């Protein structure tokens, strides 16, 4: 069920340059079932900024009724979010969207998880779930520079992890696609989240492979009602368009025309 709840901030800290980790507590957590789902957050009670901000769920802790998200303080809304204090309440709508299909990977299989920048967070909960299920993940994570890297150790704990940075200040220099081309990993399917350019490159590179991509698009309602977040589909698909907020944000490779 989708709920609107004033959730309490129980943890909040900067974990990399302008990158914040925030943990929220509330009943809404119990409706979260899938990594890759997102929440829609109102950063202020005022009308300025007006719209909610979509942020992915990075990890779910049902036991303590908590979930964690990781976001980059960039524009007006996320900067205001970054100023919130522990103990304050936040108006959260969620969980929204479909999430990554864990059922698509079978125990014993190897999968690649490819993340770029603030596309990395949802892969964390995904990886945990996959590992729990006996799937072996290989993580390929791209960042702008050393200062922007986060959760490296957490991912290493779960499996093989490769870091690339655009400026080469940490890990290998280049893009995730450069590294993947070199690495040529064996895998049965891939899961990825990141900037649209990266998703396009990956979908091209692995055009004949099974994969699942999580997309971003500017949103209004976040619920599927306003047609703000539509993406054109490819000829392979029956429908003319999909909505990122309600049909996605995760789509099988080949569905969204990039």
């Amino acid at each position, binding site marked *: 069920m989708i709920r609107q709840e004033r959730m309490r901030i129980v943890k909040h800290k900067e974990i990399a340059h302008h990158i914040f980790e925030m943990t929220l507590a509330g009943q809404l957590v119990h409706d979260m079932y899938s990594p890759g789902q997102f929440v829609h957050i109102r950063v202020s009670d005022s*009308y*300025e900024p*007006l719209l909610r901000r979509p942020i992915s769920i990075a990890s779910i802790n049902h036991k303590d009724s908590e979930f964690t998200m990781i976001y980059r303080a960039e524009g007006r809304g996320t900067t205001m979010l970054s100023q919130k204090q522990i103990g304050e309440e936040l108006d959260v709508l969620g969980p929204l969207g479909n999430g990554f299909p864990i059922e698509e990977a079978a125990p014993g299989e190897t999968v690649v998880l490819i993340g770029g920048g603030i596309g990395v967070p949802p892969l964390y909960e995904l990886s945990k779930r996959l590992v729990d299920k006996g799937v072996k993940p290989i993580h390929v994570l791209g960042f702008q520079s050393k200062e922007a890297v986060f959760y490296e150790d957490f991912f290493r704990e779960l499996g093989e992890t490769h870091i690339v940075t655009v400026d080469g200040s940490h890990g290998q220099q280049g893009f995730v696609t450069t590294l993947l081309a070199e690495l040529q990993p064996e895998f049965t399917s891939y899961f990825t989240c990141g900037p649209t350019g990266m998703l396009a490159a990956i979908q091209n590179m692995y055009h004949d492979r099974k994969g699942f991509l999580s997309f971003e*698009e500017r949103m*209004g309602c976040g*619920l599927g009602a306003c*047609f703000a*977040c*539509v993406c054109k589909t490819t000829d392979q698909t029956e429908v003319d*368009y999909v909505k990122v907020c309600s049909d996605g944000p995760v789509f099988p490779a080949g569905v969204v025309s990039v």
Partner: protein
Amino acid sequence: MNRLSIELPGLSLKNPIMPASGCFGFGKEYARLYDLSKLGAIMIKATTLETRLGNPTPRVAETSSGMLNAIGLQNPGLEKVLAEELKWLEQYDVPIIANVAGTLTEDYVEVAKHISKSKNVHALELNISCPNVKCGGITFGTDPTVAAELTAAVKEVSEVPVYVKLSPNVTDIGEIARAVEAGGADGITMINTLIGMRLDTRTGKPVIANGTGGLSGPAVKPVALRMVYEVAKQVSIPIIGMGGVATVDDVIDFMSAGASAVAVGTANFVDPFVCPNIINQLPEKLDWLGLNHVSELVGRSHR
């Protein structure tokens, strides 16, 4: 006694609150959040004769206390709206106001003819004010003669009362209102969005792929309220007011200015429960104002 009921041409409203067209789809998404039968009515997304895929994305951009959109009337087309969306909505006890759009007069007439036969469509809302499509839409809404003719043509075929949705992007909205009244409109809905633009400061290019978009949300409320006030003085058909409504106080203001009912658009995105919340708060607000019935609010400003 139901203190909130309002009678309008074609519409027996339980309460004067309804989601505005394009901000509520065809209801399905919000039905997951609350019972749609609570609403006074539902204004469904613009319906055109053919399927429309709308404009390229980005289609929305945020502005100070407002947002721009250029959805471009994306909708599944008349046939599917009739067979799927309206059919599905029949399970709820709520009158539907069908927002009708098109490129040529013939398109409007064709859609109106069929959609007005639908069991739960109790009124039409002629969208002569969409700023986000190249032809049709707003072009009908800025010329009084054209607006009146379109109204008359649709009135001829419609089996339910016809409301005309006015554009605020005009020099004299009263003139357009009087024209559509003369053309036979049973009511007026207003306002549609103001044409606006946002640029990406770094690139200097428009954020919205379409270039311009329609401005809505609390930012436009003062303009909307002024226009409702002005039109209320000039026509005798009822007005459904909208533009920036987000709270029960906004509803009081629009009704005071002369609206008989109020639609809520953008605020649904900010707070998906805004419509039922306002409906729940209305009786208490009437008490605060010492009024028995919500209809006593209508036109208070003019008295």
